[in-house]
C-alpha cells in the first residue's frame, strides 16, 4: 500500500509534479540528443579517419616519418607483406607511393601529397572512390593513363572549381520551380566565370535580397558549380638525387571527404604512372595501409608486425589520427560531464519539490507517525515518491529522446552555417546522431541514482518531524 500511496502522492499537486516531470523529460531529451550528436560525430570522424585517411595500421620506413624523401621506402618489403598476408585479422592491404609534390595550373599552384596507388586495390581499402562529388567526374582507373584524382578543396585552390550561370543553368533552375523574378536577376550574372565560392557569393549578394538568398542561394550555387574535369595539372616532384622533375596529369575526378585538412593536400594517381615520372625500375612503396576486420585488433596486429618490421615503423590508427582516437577515448568522459550537469540540475529540482511537498504535508506525516507508521516506512514512502516523480520524467525523456534520435539518425542534422568550420577540423557538417543501448542503460541508472540521492534529504527531514508538533501545524 505504501507504493500505492507514494504513487498517488506524486499526483496530489498535479501542476507542480508535471513541472518537475517536464523538466526531467526535457533534460533527458537534451542529454540524449547532445550525446547522440557527439557520439554521431565521433563515430563518423572515426569511420572517416579509418576508411578515408589512415586505415587501421600503416607501415613506413622509420626515416621516412622524419624526412619524407623519395628514397626512404619500406624495408624488407617481401617479409613484411608475407607477414601481413598471414594475419587472420586481415581484411585487406595496399602499398602506396607517397611523395611531396607541387601541383600547378595556369592559374594557381599548391603543395600536395601525391599518392601513387593501385586503384582497384585501393577501392577495397578506402572509401575515397565513393566520395566523388556530383558532376565531379570519376575515380582513378588503371586502364586510363595520366589521370589524377583531386579533392574539391584542391580544385578550388587550383582554380579548377568554378561557378558559371549558363542558359542551361537557368533552364535547370526553371525546372526546379525557381520564380521568374529570380531567374531574371540571374540573367545579370550569365556567362560570368567565378573561380572561388566567395566571389560567387559576393556576386549573388549584389543581385539578390537576403531573403531570396536564404531561399534560393544554395540551389543556385549548386547548379552553377562546374569542375574543370580533364583539365591538365602539372605535378613537380624531386627524384632520388633531388633533381626536380615534372609530369602532366589530367583531372579525372573530384572527391570530397569530411576532412578539409586531408582533402586539401591529398591527390591520387596510378602508381605505375607515377613510377614512369620518377623513372624507377619498380614502383616505390613508402606506405603500407592495412585494414582489419575489427578495429579493436589494431593493437595486437601492431605487436605482431612490429616483431618483423625491422627498421620500419608500425603505427595504429590511434597514432595516425590522434584527434579521432582522443575523441573516441574521451566520449565516456563527455557522457559523465553532460549527464552530470543534467543530473545536478535535476537533483536541485527534485529536492526543492519534495521539500515543498513535505512542508505542505507536515500534519499528515505527524498523523502517520502518531497512528503507528514507523520511520522506515515513512522514509520508504518519501523515497518512492521521489523515484516515481523522477522515473516518470526519465521514461518520457528517454523514449522521446530515442524517438527524436532515431528520426535524426535517418535524416541527419545539417549544420549548414558551420559546415566549412566543422570540415576544417575533420568533422562532417551533416551529423547522424547515434545513441547506444549502453548509453540508455547508463542514463537510466544515473537518473535512478540521482532520484535516490535527492530523496535522502527530504526523507530525513520528514523523519525529524516530531508528531506532536507536526499535528499542531495548520
Amino acid at each position: 500500500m505504501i507504493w500505492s500511496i507514494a504513487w498517488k502522492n506524486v499526483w496530489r499537486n498535479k501542476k507542480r509534479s508535471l513541472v518537475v516531470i517536464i523538466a526531467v523529460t526535457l533534460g533527458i531529451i537534451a542529454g540524449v540528443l547532445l550525446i547522440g550528436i557527439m557520439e554521431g560525430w565521433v563515430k563518423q570522424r572515426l569511420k572517416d579517419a579509418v576508411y578515408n585517411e589512415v586505415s587501421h595500421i600503416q607501415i613506413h620506413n622509420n626515416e621516412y616519418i622524419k624526412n619524407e624523401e623519395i628514397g626512404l621506402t619500406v624495408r624488407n618489403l617481401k617479409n613484411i607483406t608475407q607477414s601481413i598476408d598471414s594475419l587472420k585479422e586481415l581484411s585487406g592491404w595496399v602499398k602506396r607511393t607517397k611523395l611531396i609534390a607541387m601541383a600547378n595550373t595556369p592559374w594557381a599552384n599548391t603543395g600536395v601529397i601525391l599518392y601513387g596507388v593501385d586503384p582497384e586495390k585501393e577501392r577495397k581499402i578506402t572509401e575515397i572512390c565513393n566520395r566523388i562529388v556530383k558532376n565531379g567526374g570519376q575515380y582513378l582507373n588503371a586502364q586510363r593513363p595520366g589521370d589524377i584524382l583531386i579533392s574539391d578543396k584542391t580544385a578550388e585552390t587550383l582554380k579548377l572549381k568554378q561557378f558559371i550561370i549558363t542558359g542551361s543553368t537557368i533552364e535547370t533552375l526553371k525546372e526546379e520551380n525557381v520564380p521568374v523574378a529570380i531567374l531574371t536577376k540571374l540573367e545579370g550574372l550569365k556567362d560570368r566565370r567565378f573561380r572561388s565560392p566567395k566571389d560567387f557569393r559576393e556576386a549573388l549578394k549584389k543581385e539578390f535580397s537576403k531573403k531570396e538568398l536564404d531561399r534560393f542561394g544554395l540551389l543556385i550555387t549548386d547548379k552553377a558549380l562546374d569542375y574543370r574535369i580533364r583539365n591538365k595539372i602539372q605535378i613537380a616532384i624531386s627524384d632520388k638525387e633531388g633533381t626536380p622533375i615534372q609530369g602532366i596529369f589530367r583531372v579525372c575526378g573530384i572527391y570530397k571527404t569530411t576532412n578539409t585538412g586531408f582533402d586539401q593536400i591529398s591527390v591520387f594517381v596510378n602508381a605505375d604512372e607515377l613510377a614512369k615520372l620518377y623513372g624507377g625500375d619498380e614502383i616505390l612503396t613508402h606506405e603500407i595501409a592495412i585494414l582489419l576486420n575489427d578495429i579493436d585488433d589494431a593493437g595486437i596486429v601492431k605487436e605482431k608486425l612490429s616483431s618483423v618490421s625491422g627498421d620500419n615503423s608500425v603505427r595504429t590508427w590511434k597514432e595516425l589520427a590522434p584527434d579521432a582516437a582522443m575523441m573516441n577515448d574521451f566520449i565516456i568522459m563527455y557522457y559523465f560531464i553532460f549527464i552530470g550537469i543534467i543530473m545536478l540540475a535535476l537533483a536541485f529540482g527534485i529536492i526543492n519539490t519534495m521539500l515543498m511537498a513535505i512542508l505542505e504535508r507536515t500534519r499528515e506525516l505527524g498523523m502517520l507517525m502518531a497512528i503507528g507508521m514507523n520511520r522506515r516506512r515513512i522514509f520508504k514512502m518519501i523515497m518512492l515518491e521521489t523515484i516515481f516523480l523522477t522515473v516518470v520524467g526519465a521514461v518520457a525523456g528517454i523514449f522521446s529522446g530515442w524517438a527524436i534520435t532515431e528520426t535524426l539518425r535517418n535524416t541527419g542534422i545539417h549544420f549548414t552555417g558551420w559546415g566549412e568550420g566543422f570540415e576544417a577540423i575533420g568533422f562532417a557538417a551533416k551529423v547522424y546522431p547515434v545513441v547506444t543501448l549502453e548509453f540508455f542503460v547508463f542514463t537510466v541508472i544515473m537518473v535512478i541514482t540521482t532520484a535516490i540521492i535527492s530523496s535522502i534529504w527530504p526523507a530525513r527531514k520528514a523523519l525529524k518531524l516530531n508528531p506532536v508538533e507536526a499535528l499542531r501545524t495548520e
Partner: protein
Amino acid sequence: MKVLELKNVNKIYNSTEIMVHAVNDVSLYFEEAEFAAIVGPSGSGKTTLLNLIGGLDMPTSGEIIINSTNLSKLKSSQLIDFRLRNIGFVFQSYNLIPVLTAKENVEFIMTLQKWPLKERDERTIELLKAVGLGNRINSKPAKLSGGQQQRVAVARALASKPKFILADEPTANLDSKAAMTLLEIMEKLNHEEKITFIFSTHDSRVVKMAHRIITLEDGKVISDENRNSHANKN
C-alpha cells in the same frame, strides 16, 4: 481490569523565558470499556495529557503503564509499534489521507499491521458500515462532509482493534447533528466492542454522554466524576 494507569505524571515545558507545568502530578487509571471525557478550560493540559497517554510525548517524570507496559521504558521504534497495536487516535481535524478512499484510509492501519487481505477487507467494510458509511467506501475525503470524515477517522482508529481510543476534541469541527451522530456511533462501538474511549473536549454534548468526567485545571486533576458502574478513583 485496568487498561491504563498514570502514576504521578508530570510534564514540564522549559522554554527560554518561562517554565510551563502542563501536567502536574496526575495519577489516574482507566478500566476496560470506559467512555471518559477529559474537560477543562483552554491551556488546562487536556491535549498534553492525551499526548502523554498516547505515547506521542514523554512525561518529565512519573509512569504511564498500558497493559503492564511502561511507555517510558520503550525505545522510539518500539513506541511507534506499540501505538500501532494498542492505541487508536481520532483527531480534531480528521487527518485522513486525502489521496486514499474511505476504505483505503481504514485499511491502511491494518496494512501496517500486515493483516491478510481478506480479513482486512471484511473488517474495513464492517467498520464503515458500523459508522454508517457503507455506501461511501470508495469516496475520497474531499467528497465527504466533516462529520463523515470524522466517522471514517473513528473507523480507522478502531481498525487495528486497539485497547483504547484517544480522541482530541473530536466534535470541535462538527455541527450539532453530525456531532450527535458521531457520539452515538462511538458510544455504540464502546458498548459493542468493549473499547475504552478517552476524549478531550470542550463540547457539552460530549460531556453529557460521557460515563466519566475528569476535570483538569492548570495541569491538575481537580475532579473525577463517575456516572455509572465503571467506578474509578483519583
